[in-house]
């Protein structure tokens, strides 16, 4: 099933949306500044609606089915959140409005800052970073500025376990530091001896994901934090797996100095086909002055019980600066606020408890069929190996693609890197037992197929809109744009 490109649907002279006539006297346009005719689609509104509706039908989504994608927390995105973000008081509010005229938006951000701080045991939160990786950069820049501010300029290294997401080492490089990778021990934890050997006065800090990307709570996390702190380094927690921690433990109380939240994972803001995300950062006492900002503060206390305080923008004293224009992905803040508000204290705890329950339930039901390399109580996700003794032709990717035929989204493949043929499974709390049972049955059926008829797997998917793609061709014969290059482009290029 191939959908034509939007350009191919058009006809010269056809118009989509009509705009009003000009109601003011016109000013002559400056001819020398004008462009040639814009080579854009000429399509009707109905054509646009059908085109994008048909495209949408080619997608898998949470609204359509189970999405056990490890480390991505593909939980249900409540519809209420979308309606709230689209209230015109939020959606049509200009970001450079005066604070006095933005009290609703500022009050919301202020509460969200405080709730996120409370959930993770931190002293301050900035909502500005636009995604998890953006929060990581903010966090490492804060660590850097903290050391520089103290005149401690010889620290150049950040320690990272080898199970880390790729964003971690990439962040370290962006911030001007060097990555030192640490091995895992036989239990999947950080190797404490290797950590001790690596810790000295050139270490600026350590980035670690808790629970780690194997879905395991680091059993020696307090020792890890203590070791790094003793050499003068600060601890960064990658909050990608925060769905395993709500109401279970507060990273700030464990001793972490800074972490980012993924509102698009833990707090249910939709993934939108790859974004927008939102990656606020929380910090302990030491790093509060360095938060990216401005952030929201109370600039005038309430005068009585029925009065509201006056909220305004506050720039942290030693801020690392702005991470983006304006105030962060505010629309995501509205959704996360709504989500936390509706759950309240008890509901927030229930999220994590059921996410962990669901993940363990799948693991114990699959451990006799698939090899589970770290077969102990896991957190919100776990990793199994997607291959079978004596069947060399079948890989994790083939199991993933076969799941598509059964109506499930594949798990995360080939990550973390330390497990061969890794399949990382994260069900989230919003799935019911019947769905989990169905998934378990299908995984067992696929294991049987791998033995009896491996071609069913290696040729999968059989029912998707397209079969496996030629990715080599995409990279070699690079076609990134469907329009021809205008003539003038050739001439300006050669000049």
């Amino acid at each position, binding site marked *: 099933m191939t959908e034509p490109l939007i350009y191919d649907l058009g006809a010269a002279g056809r118009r989509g949306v009509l705009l009003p006539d000009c109601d003011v006297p016109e000013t002559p346009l400056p001819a020398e500044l004008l462009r040639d005719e814009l080579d854009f689609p000429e*399509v009707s509104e109905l054509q646009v609606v059908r085109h994008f509706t048909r495209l949408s039908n080619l997608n898998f989504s949470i609204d359509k089915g189970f999405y056990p994608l490890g480390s991505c927390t593909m939980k249900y995105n409540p519809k209420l959140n979308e309606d709230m973000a689209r209230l015109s008081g939020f959606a049509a509010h200009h*970001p450079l409005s005066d604070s006095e005229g*933005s009290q609703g938006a500022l009050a919301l951000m202020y509460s969200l800052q405080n709730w996120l701080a409370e959930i993770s045991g931190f002293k301050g939160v900035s909502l500005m970073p636009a995604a998890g990786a953006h929060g990581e950069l903010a966090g490492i820049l804060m660590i850097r500025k903290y050391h520089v501010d103290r005149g401690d300029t010889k620290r150049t290294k950040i320690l990272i376990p080898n199970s880390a997401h790729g964003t971690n080492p990439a962040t370290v490089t962006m911030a*001007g530091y060097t990555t030192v990778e640490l091995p895992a021990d036989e239990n999947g934890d950080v190797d404490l001896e290797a950590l001790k050997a690596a810790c000295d006065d050139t270490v600026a800090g350590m980035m670690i994901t808790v629970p780690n990307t194997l879905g395991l709570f680091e059993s020696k996390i307090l020792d890890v934090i203590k070791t790094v702190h003793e050499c003068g380094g600060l601890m960064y927690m990658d909050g990608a797996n925060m769905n395993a921690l709500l109401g279970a433990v507060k990273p700030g109380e464990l001793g972490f100095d800074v972490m980012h939240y993924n509102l698009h994972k833990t707090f249910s803001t*939709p993934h939108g086909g790859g974004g927008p995300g939102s990656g606020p950062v929380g910090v302990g006492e030491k790093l509060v002055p360095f938060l990216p900002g401005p952030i929201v503060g109370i600039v005038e206390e309430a005068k009585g019980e029925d009065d509201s305080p006056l909220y305004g923008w506050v720039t942290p004293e030693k801020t690392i600066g702005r991470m983006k224009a304006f105030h962060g992905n505010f629309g995501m803040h509205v959704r996360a606020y709504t989500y936390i508000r*509706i759950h309240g204290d008890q509901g927030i705890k229930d999220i994590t408890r059921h996410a962990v329950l669901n993940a363990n339930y799948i693991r114990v039901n699959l451990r006799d069929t698939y090899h589970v390399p770290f077969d102990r109580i896991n957190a919100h996700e776990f990793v199994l190996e997607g291959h079978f003794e004596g069947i060399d032709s079948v890989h994790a990717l083939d199991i993933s693609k076969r799941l598509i035929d059964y109506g499930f989204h594949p798990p995360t493949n080939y990550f973390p890197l330390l497990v061969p043929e890794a399949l990382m499974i994260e069900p989230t709390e919003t799935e019911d037992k019947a769905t989990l049972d169905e998934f378990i049955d299908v995984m067992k059926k696929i294991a049987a197929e791998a033995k009896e008829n491996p071609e069913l797997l290696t040729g999968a998917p059989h029912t998707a809109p*397209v079969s496996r*793609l030629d990715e080599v061709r995409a*990279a070699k014969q690079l076609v990134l744009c469907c329009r021809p290059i205008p003539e003038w482009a050739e001439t300006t290029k050669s000049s």
Partner: protein
Amino acid sequence: MSYTPHTDLERQQMLSAIGVTTIEDLFEAVPSSHRFPKLDLPKPMSEMEVAAELSALADANEHAGDFALFRGAGAYHHFIPSAIGHLVLRGEFLTAYTPYQPEVSQGTLQAIYEYQSMMCTLTGMDAANASHYDGATSLAEAVTVSLEVGRQKRKKIILSPAINPQYRAVVRTYHQGSNIKIMGDSGRADIADLIEMLDENTAMVAVSYPNFFGQIDDFAQLAEKVHQAGALLVMVVNPTALGLLKSPGELGADIVVGEGQPLGIPLGFGGPYLGFFAVRNEYVRKIAGRIIGETVDKEGRRAYVMTLRPREQDIRREKATSNICTNQGLMSLTACIYMALMGKYGMRKVAELCYHKAHYAAKQIDDLKGYVVDMGKPFFHEFVVKCPMSVASINDKLIEKGIVGGYDLGLDYPHLKDHMLICVTEMNSKDEIDALVEGLKEAVA
């Protein structure tokens, strides 16, 4: 309220399957000293109550639904056709993940490919990525690309002071850990001054088109001089203006970045927005972010897939030039649908309406006693007004009349104290503009 569907019976069955008694037993790996802390959050609420609370918060804002808005400065109030919201809210787009599994993500992939294609057309570039967080972070990433192109030997980055001040701040935040020199924007340098700063150590020069003051600078010499020095020309552009004005490609830009918010994305108090990023072919392998390319499936059917993947952080790790992992997926979809709906005719029409209305407003205001509009350069839909009193005091009077006045340029440019940046779009009717003019007049009366 909770979105967990478990019944007591199911919970029990699942716990016995796992071999534990209570859910709490699953958390024994968490240090007992820190396990199950007190959580001081509000009590749960029903959907009805939450909706009422949020509506009250939303109503407490002076927003463009209730006020006539003449503020831009990086975020613009434009008409958003109804079809966009209906399409973008489809769960198949909204609740899909990054298209790592292309067989079940062709909708997202093709939409991004179409977005990339339209951004290439609009900017006059050969390739565009799937987007960055916003215009400011796109510019910060352009700096990284120019350093790579300069093989990390060229260390000087020249920024025009007429680039959005927040964008320049973000460039400095991003690059505070490196030993590059960011200069050019501390005073009032114009294009000729920027050209003077070029040398063999310069990696890039960035200018804004139109600039932060709404004006269109004379770029006649710029590209040639920048290229002679071996540096890259980066343009920060407004996509609405490009419906009317020469494309940056035609002006000799090597990298074009900007804020895609005007393309159908609501003001939304500043985000989520859309950082677009487009380049000439020779730099495509150096850029960050997701890129979608065309290919075929096993049956030879045309299909789309994320390509040039080895540039990205999940593969290259510490050798990647950027850590970006998400894109503004839903926002690039929004812009794609907007550009399709507007089409060739609508893109031009919106730009013309902005141009005419802004010029009408500028003339009326310039005629007012005490106000002077800077007419020294051509402008698009924003212009600078020298006011006879502080911008804050004028805006305080305007808001009482239901008008959100212009941006106070003195906040960012000390020499522009009492200067207001006024923005007029197709959303401002003649009546609104006349009311603004009247309001400004009365403010000094």
